[in-house]
């Protein structure tokens, strides 16, 4: 159930990994993708937009086979209903069910099983 919105807000928390080097986690071996309908809430999307890393979002969506988002985050009038609908679909309706996420820096693997990513670290990876 990893939605892209959470993926976009998530980075590696192992020892020695600091933002922004440890972002975004890359999806690999994604064997199961699911699209589940969610309630559309334009206000929420508009509120979350400034918090998103747009480039990371577009790249990840492309990796997962969704190319509906523009390369640049639209501003002002370009943020229309149609765009928000597409953003809603990518952010909240696409779920990664099985696969793994890798940290771009330390290559730590976070496996995703049944839609739940395992974020546990081993003793030597816990940051101090």
């Amino acid at each position, binding site marked *: 159930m990893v939605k892209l919105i959470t993926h976009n807000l998530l980075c590696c928390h192992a020892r020695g990994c600091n933002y922004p080097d*440890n972002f975004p986690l890359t999806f690999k071996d994604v064997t199961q993708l699911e699209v589940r309908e969610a309630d559309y809430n334009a206000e929420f999307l508009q509120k979350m937009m400034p918090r998103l890393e747009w480039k990371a979002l577009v790249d990840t969506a492309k990796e997962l086979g969704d190319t509906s988002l523009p390369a640049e985050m639209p501003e002002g009038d370009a943020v229309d209903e149609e765009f928000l609908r597409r953003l809603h679909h990518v952010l909240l309706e696409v779920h990664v069910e099985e696969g793994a996420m890798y940290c771009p820096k330390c290559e730590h693997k976070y496996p995703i*099983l049944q839609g739940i990513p395992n*974020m546990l670290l081993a003793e030597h990876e816990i940051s101090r």
Partner: protein
Amino acid sequence: MSRPEHIAPPEIYYGDAEARKYTENSRIQSIQSAMTLRALELLALPPDEPAFLLDIGCGSGLSGEILDEEGYNWVGVDIAPSMLAEVALEREVEGDLFLQDIGQGFGFRPGTFDGAISISVIQWLCNADVSFHSPPKRLQQFFSTLYASLVRGARAVLQFYPQSDDQVTMITSIAMRCGFEGGLVVDYPNSTKAKKYFLCLFAGSPVAAEGKKAKVELPMGLQGEGEKAIAYERRRGLEKRGRRKTDKKGVHDKEWILRKKELYRQRGKAEVPRDSKYTGRRRKFAF
């Protein structure tokens, strides 16, 4: 009072059976939902605005369900795989779930969440379950990463069951050291059973219109006895007492004795006493 923290680490204590028991128990459900609603009230999010929340120790999603109902988007983290996989997935909660040890810190980007709630969780952090666990360090890691992941001016409301005043001091002092403001809100302080501790933390204060920092006041705890929360306690006690009396098997009546004797005769058992008007009667009282 039994404390599950003393029995086993959370990921083991909340195994499949306990996770299911916990989730299906209607008393726990009602307490959890009451506490979640109270936590949301203390969170004081602006009304009618969407928000992105973090549910720390979401378990099987009892609190998450309420967040769904209130229309919030949320992310839940928990350390017990059984709670997440077996129960929370079945119940189809809306939020994203993560298997994570909160004592290892969160990996969310700075300024992600509009608020965080946690119901009956952080007392677990006061335990050292493995040799390399150090409660103050884990608390430190937890609070500092939580502080970072919150939007400035956001709140975190953490309900917990402290074991002693020392624990309260340790938890609050570490939270303050990590930059949080706020403090402890105690609901129903005069009641033994309904008493609830909420750690109400502010991650910085929102900047007011004139650029001055608005002073945030710690909300008041609820007063009174909290009668509602323990409405059936007395009745249950009485029922239990009543049951103990009737648990003893009563003396069998005449009908039962006659039936048994008839059965023995049919089976050809030797020396079955004959029936008379004295059958099944009490003997006379005698020394």
